[in-house]
């Protein structure tokens, strides 16, 4: 007699921001098998990049692959095209780009923390973290003019400069945020009811992290030292005080803590960047058409983002390959579900910070 029962989650569900459908094979409350359908938001961006848009426009199109990590998409594409054009940006441009990427990482990590709390049943904590996230959104709006999807990066530079007023605003808001994050770390570490939902739940072992090529916070929470910020020389991350954050237990608690400590690190980097901003132009003329093949890796909030761009000296590119973090993280995620309780599934899912619009493009 069949002893298992199939329970679906999605594609529309209160705990999901985006459509994804899971089919859990459950034995009583325990999940023993997972099947996922991730293609709900496939729009065909890769095709449009090589048929419809010219290479100067594509940077703004690929930003629409994902709203949360839009800046890393346009950054990786821009870096790839700049490599093909034989142009290297000056230090001021690099620093301003890093500043926006790190601000984006802070707000994305905070959203993930809030969402995990909501899915684990802590509605008040969700509201609290969402409120504390707003100062970062204010900074982004002040710098770029939009809260999300800010199209800040263009080929050959960035679109807006950092004025002294903005520097003061950044320092003020980040100082407030820094205190809140310290309090949050204390809360996540010591609160008993949070520990019931977070500690020891949804464990990814180091061995499995290697086998399934886990990446981003998911891998670093399991102790796998993989961060593109230390593996790529496109942006000078060492110069602004980057340190890798590693945890070892691999559960939801560890993933939350990786995110919290990365926020602390990102705040420090943002302050360094604002204080030590080099002098220079923010927009330089880049001539020519992309020819050849270039690969770029950038650490998005969810892990490694990979772009392969091939051009043939025309306005229209030959191939834009987008490999997004969640896309290659899905086998590892499915592995984590096996053996955990069905009631924990929404919290585990949110703790991966999955981005379906990235996955399906």
């Amino acid at each position, binding site marked *: 007699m069949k002893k298992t029962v199939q329970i679906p989650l999605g594609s529309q569900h209160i705990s999901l921001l985006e459509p994804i459908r899971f089919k859990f094979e459950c034995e009583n409350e325990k999940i023993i098998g997972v099947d996922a359908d*991730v*293609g709900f938001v*496939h729009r*065909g961006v*890769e*095709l449009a990049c090589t048929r419809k848009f010219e290479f100067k426009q594509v940077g703004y199109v690929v930003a629409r692959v994902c709203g949360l990590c839009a800046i890393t998409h346009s950054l990786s594409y821009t870096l790839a095209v700049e490599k093909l054009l034989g142009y290297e940006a000056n230090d001021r441009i690099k620093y301003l780009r890093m500043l926006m990427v790190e601000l984006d990482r802070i707000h994305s990590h905070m959203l993930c923390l809030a969402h995990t709390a909501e899915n684990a049943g802590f509605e008040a904590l969700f509201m609290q973290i969402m409120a504390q996230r707003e100062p970062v959104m204010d900074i982004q709006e002040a710098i770029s003019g939009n809260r999300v999807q800010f199209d800040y990066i263009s080929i050959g530079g960035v679109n807006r400069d950092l004025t002294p007023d903005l520097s003061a605003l950044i320092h003020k808001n980040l100082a407030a945020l820094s205190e809140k994050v310290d309090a949050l770390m204390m809360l996540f570490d010591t609160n008993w009811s949070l520990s019931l939902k977070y500690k020891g739940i949804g464990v990814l072992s180091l061995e499995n992290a*290697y*086998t*399934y*090529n886990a*990446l981003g916070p998911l891998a670093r929470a399991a102790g*796998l*030292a*993989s961060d593109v910020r*230390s*593996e*790529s*020389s496109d942006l000078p991350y060492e110069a602004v005080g980057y340190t890798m954050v590693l945890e070892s237990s691999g559960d939801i608690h560890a993933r939350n803590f990786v995110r919290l400590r990365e926020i602390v690190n990102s705040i420090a980097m943002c302050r360094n960047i604002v204080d030590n901003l080099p002098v220079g132009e923010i927009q330089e003329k880049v001539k020519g058409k992309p020819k050849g093949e270039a*690969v770029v*890796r950038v650490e998005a909030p969810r892990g*490694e983002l*990979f772009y*392969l761009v*091939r051009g043939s000296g025309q306005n229209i590119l*030959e*191939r834009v*390959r987008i*490999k997004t973090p969640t*896309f*290659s993280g*899905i*086998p*590892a995620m499915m592995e984590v579900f096996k053996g955990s309780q069905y009631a924990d599934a929404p919290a585990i899912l949110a703790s991966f910070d999955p981005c379906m619009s990235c996955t*399906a493009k």
Partner: protein
Amino acid sequence: MTKIETTLSSLLADIGTFYDKKIWHFLTVNGIDLGEGKIELQWIFSKYGAKDEIIIYYLISEYETAIPSIIGLIPSAIMGEREIVDMFGLTVSGVEKGLYLDEDSIPHPLRSQS
């Protein structure tokens, strides 16, 4: 970025001897349409802890030829292989269609429609 050419028959042996899961991070499988029924396939790896070290195994194949699957060696390759099956209409042994496209979508959109 290093590019190493391989062939369909030696692909599994090449990647099997090369790949060590504690040293190499498997990125993805990639396909590039070359026109006239030809496609370049790439298997992309990067090294943990090393700066800018990317290795691409590539081969040039035709759309009709079946491609061996590397899921046995690298389980996480399943996503990339399902994607090239959908987007290029290739046959990869043991990999099914339907990651992104529905029945009424344009079939194999990234293949050049000549």
